[in-house]
């Protein structure tokens, strides 16, 4: 659109059903022309945009025509059919801006709800972003109404000062992720009480969690399926191992593991998780590093010092390998939740078409994939019923690397507060006593609220809403906490400003 005009192949129709006259549609700043291919045809058009009141178009779809309908003041309309939707969209955008420009010129000062444009030509995406921003932020909308529609500022001027907002907003949207659920699913076996059968229910999300928390199981899945066993066999075996654990009978577990190599993989302690822990410990904050103490502890040479509080374990060594505690699992689970996930599994799984067809080809892909740390692939979806009938489709999710911290805070202001706080804890850390020192300048711009009353009202409403919502999951809870926290911090700022005069 840089040259100020658009020329596309189109068919001019008098009605939707009409086959239409093939020709070329040309649009300039002020008017549009239609030149039929057949020079003898009378369907030649030359219409000023000033007269065009609005435009309609068909939704993009496989079996629909790419239509554009321009309605004119006098009640008539012009329908064009394009060969492709992209042609149509180019024209549509051009028309939209052209109508706006000519409309502005024609009826200067008159109120219109659509965003008026002057010399700037905006892409459709840009427009949408602005509109969404206005919809989300009532303050901004009010301001926009006052300034732009009131004629104080032009649209371009209004947004020029808020460019950052537009950019940030876009980037924030794309980064916001739904976190993992806080609670740990424990695959609870259910038995019908009559036969000797125990049933396990595995859902895609549970499997995802198992893979994330137990890298050894994931590795085993990659190794065994499908070369050695089918998925069904794999998960049956896994469930059997889980069941053995839940009975807490270490001796039986050890005996079973001795007989079956594959089962042993699930029953043994997770070496991969352990080595990962050893790797991570090097990056731990030195003020937390309790491992360093071990290195300095001479009273606990083997057999020195006093043993108190039964801290010594009874270790009957051959079985120690198969002992696994709930406490460890809890820690591991929480760590995984904290690291976050790559994609919302439930949502994804619901979109996964179930069927055996995809299974084989995807499985091949899966095995070919390199397994990295940040690689979250997603393997299968089992039916909600018996483990027995797996209708799994295997799919691979995006390879995503994310920062480990993620603010799950809905409100931009709270994000700023959270940032400010983490900057504080990062820089000052434990080294300084905060209230003995004058408050530091923050690395982030201080929060500035024009109408505090408005802000607090909305905050309160938020808090009440999320408190009242009893079904609120972890995320909701988190929001209410962080707003409360933000509120407290804000109060601190105000009091600081007060005390410092």
């Amino acid at each position, binding site marked *: 659109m840089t040259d100020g005009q658009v020329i596309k192949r189109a068919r001019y129709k008098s009605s939707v059903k009409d086959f239409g006259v093939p020709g070329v549609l040309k649009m300039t700043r002020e008017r549009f022309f239609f030149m039929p291919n057949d020079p003898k045809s009378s369907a030649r058009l030359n219409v000023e945009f000033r007269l065009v009141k609005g435009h309609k178009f068909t939704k993009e779809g496989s079996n629909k025509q790419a239509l554009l309908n321009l309605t004119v003041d006098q009640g008539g309309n012009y329908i064009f059919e394009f060969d492709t939707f992209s042609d149509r969209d180019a024209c549509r955008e051009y028309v939209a801006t052209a109508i706006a420009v000519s409309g502005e010129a024609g009826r200067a000062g008159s109120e219109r709800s659509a965003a008026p444009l002057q010399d700037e030509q905006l892409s459709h995406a840009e427009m949408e972003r602005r509109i969404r921003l206005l919809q989300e932020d009532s303050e901004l909308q009010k301001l926009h109404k006052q300034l732009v529609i009131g004629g104080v500022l032009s649209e371009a001027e209004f947004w020029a000062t808020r460019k950052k907002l537009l950019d940030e907003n876009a980037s924030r949207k794309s980064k916001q992720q739904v*976190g993992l659920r*806080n*609670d*740990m699913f424990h695959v609870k076996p259910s038995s019908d009480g009559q036969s000797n059968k125990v049933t396990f229910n595995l859902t895609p999300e549970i499997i995802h969690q198992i893979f994330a928390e137990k890298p050894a199981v994931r590795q085993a899945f990659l190794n065994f399926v499908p070369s050695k066993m089918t998925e069904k066999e794999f998960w049956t075996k896994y469930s059997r191992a889980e069941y053995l654990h839940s009975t807490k009978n270490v001796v039986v577990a050890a005996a079973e593991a001795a007989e079956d190599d594959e089962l042993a993989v699930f029953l043994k302690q997770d070496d991969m998780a352990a080595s990962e822990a*050893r790797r*991570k*410990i090097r990056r*731990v*904050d*030195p003020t937390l*590093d*309790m*491992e*360093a*103490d*071990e*290195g*300095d*502890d001479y*009273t606990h*040479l*083997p*057999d*020195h010092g*006093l*043993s*108190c*509080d*039964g801290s010594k374990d009874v270790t009957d060594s051959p079985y120690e390998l198969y002992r696994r*505690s*709930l406490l*460890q699992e809890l*820690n591991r689970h*929480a*760590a995984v*939740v*904290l690291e976050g996930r790559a994609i919302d599994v439930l949502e994804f799984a619901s979109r996964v078409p179930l069927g055996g067809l995809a299974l084989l080809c995807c499985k091949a892909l899966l095995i070919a994939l390199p397994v990295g740390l940040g690689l979250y692939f997603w393997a299968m979806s089992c039916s909600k019923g018996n483990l027995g009938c797996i209708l799994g489709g295997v799919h691979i999710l995006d390879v995503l690397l994310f920062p*480990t911290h993620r*603010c*799950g805070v809905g409100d931009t202001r709270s994000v700023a507060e*959270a940032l400010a*706080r983490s900057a504080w*804890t990062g820089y000052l850390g*434990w*080294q300084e*006593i*905060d*209230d*003995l020192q004058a408050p530091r300048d923050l690395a982030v711009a201080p929060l500035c609220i024009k109408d505090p009353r408005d802000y607090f009202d909305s905050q309160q409403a938020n808090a009440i809403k999320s408190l009242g919502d009893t079904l609120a999951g*972890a995320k909701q*809870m*988190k929001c209410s*906490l*962080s707003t*409360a*926290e933000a509120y407290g911090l804000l*109060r601190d700022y105000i*009091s600081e400003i*007060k*005390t410092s005069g």
Partner: protein
Amino acid sequence: MKFQIEDVTVYFPYDHIYPEQYAYMVELKRALDAKGHCLLEMPTGTGKTIALLSLITSYTLSKPSNPIKLLYCTRTVHEMEKTLAELKLLHKYQIQHLGPAARILALGLSSRKNLCINPSVVSAENRDSVDAACRKLTASWVRALAIENPNIPSCEFFENYEKAASDAVLPPGVYTLQDLRVFGKEKGWCPYFLARHMVQFANVVVYSYQYLLDPKVAGIISKEMQRESVVVFDEAHNIDNVCIEALSVSVRKQTLEGATRNLSKMSQEIERFKATDAGRLRAEYNRLVDGLAQRGNLPLADTWLANPALPDDILKEAVPGNIRRAEHFLSVLRRLVQYLKGRLQTENVEKEGPVTFVASINAQVGIDQKMLKFCYDRLHSLMLTLEITDTDEFLHIQTICDFATLVGTYTRGFSIIIEPFDERMPHIPDPVLQLSCHDASLAIKPVFERFQSVVITSGTLSPIDLYPRLLNFNPVVSRSFTMSLTRDCICPMVLTRGSDQLPVSTKFDLRSDPGVERNYGRLLLEMVSVVPDGIVCFFVSYSYMDGIVNSWHESGILKDIMQHKLVFIETQDVVETTLALDNYRKACDCGRGAVFFSVARGKVAEGIDFDRHYGRLVIMFGVPFQYTLSRILLARLEYLRETFQIKEGDFLTFDALRQAAQCVGRVIRSKADYGMMIFADKRYSRHDKRSKLPGWILSHLRDAHLNLSTDMAVHIAREFLRKMAQPYDKTGGSGKKTLLSQEDLEKMGNGNFSDMLF
């Protein structure tokens, strides 16, 4: 800020100071002036460490003619790092104001495991194997061989350090362990040996308690410290336990089996030397005849854990004739191990004093007290002679010799207890022979005697008159400070009943009651939905925590808790616990919120701070009494009653309450911080228990908060959190000043200070 305390100009790195910090410094200065020991209790979260450091360094600066050295003892390595970080801040400030004259050398000292930079050595699993791996590269005889034979590996960092000889010094500055490693890497010098060497010249040394209290370590590291030193024991509420642990040894079946293996290995070595290098063994014999148990000054790299007995008690005599020859000594050890094996086979619990034990050894296997006493030195000499470098393999025999030396040296304050099985698991035979020390004053006595001033300080030293008795010393200053608060930023509560109004307790008869477990669970569940950010829970023991967490898991309470906050747990695996803590902090930082389950007396309770948003609430589930049926504890109680006239019940309560106070005290860091503390046990409401809590907690424990049920506690928590969110005046406003500026201090001079404070 800069101010005068009498004749000392104090440089303090902040713009403001708390009144109690000032008072603390005044008391500390008086103790330094008097060159005596002192005992100071100041609430956590009032900046003890910085006050201490700032006064002592300033004291040295204003008296340059008579510089004193500061030996700062911490319980853990991470506290060491914290202290050094504060010192860094202070040092920067002093340099700014005084210029280069204020330069000091301060460093942290730790084991090879934490300081080594040689990748092939430091990858070893635990401290002992790192030590051994280092010795394999740096022992004098290995290096001698390496010169002749280039195929024998040596440590380049150590060689570089040795080559640099007297040039290898640390320039002035403050060095954390990390800094030392970085410096070592830069220069290519071994940081461990550099630090060991520089300790003699440093103005400030920060290290672990054991480097002073445990004779095995103190003997090699703190031997040459000057008398003009101030020794500070920070967080010293557990110092008596550290002291008695330093002098206690236990022997198990595995130890004896290992020792037997060690002995046969050594006898093989002796045979080998006899065949190849008989002169060496003869030389050792001659040296022992001359009365030199030690070879004099060993090269730094050859030193080893020193004698387990206290320096004053080590005989400066020749090694007795009957253990001078290596074979004879080995046969003595064999007999000793055999005797101990026999003793472990007992079916009943036995308890005796060292005198009867030694007499019985003498009667049965013919080893007299003097031979026992020399066991450790003789072993040490033999191992050097045999050029044994894989010392981690020989820990078992070393333990046996430690035991022998201690039992041969001390006649009182110890007892030997043999238990065929653990009281709690009578069906599993696990025989153990323990030599346990009951008298904390033994280990700390040389410290009090050697150094000019010893400062014992902590947030919990109540009752403050008990410590001088336990440690047997006379403090010149003994003070307990209260906390002047701008607002009531701590909120202690005693919860006696659950939501169903039934009493909650970890008392023995109620402990496994499902009702109590459920009530505790409900309490936590209510709290996680009310309190923002971090919550810390302390349980009375690992086994109790394990049990209750499993039962919460089965009843679904845990799942409900996890709907609100993530759960992290301290386990007995240090690596896992450290990672859990790290993740816990992350969860608090990002606003997700978390609960940390920990154990009183555990490693986390000992030294991790849960300040600011890392801990808005601490719940102490139960009273952390020691396991009262433990024979060792009973023996210690008996000893305390007989020697110090301390009643058993009193001591147990004192010990439990100091642990509880220690746990809950970790939430507060400064006066701007706030936190709640819930003591969830009906026994806390009794006066005899409660009164043992430190004054700064008691003064905030209102009568209305002494007998709460869960719903009332939740209500109070809501109110408290709302109140804390309100703005307030940090300086204390019109009433008592809680934050002093330089002008305030100048205005009041020295005269009317105490009126202002109290």
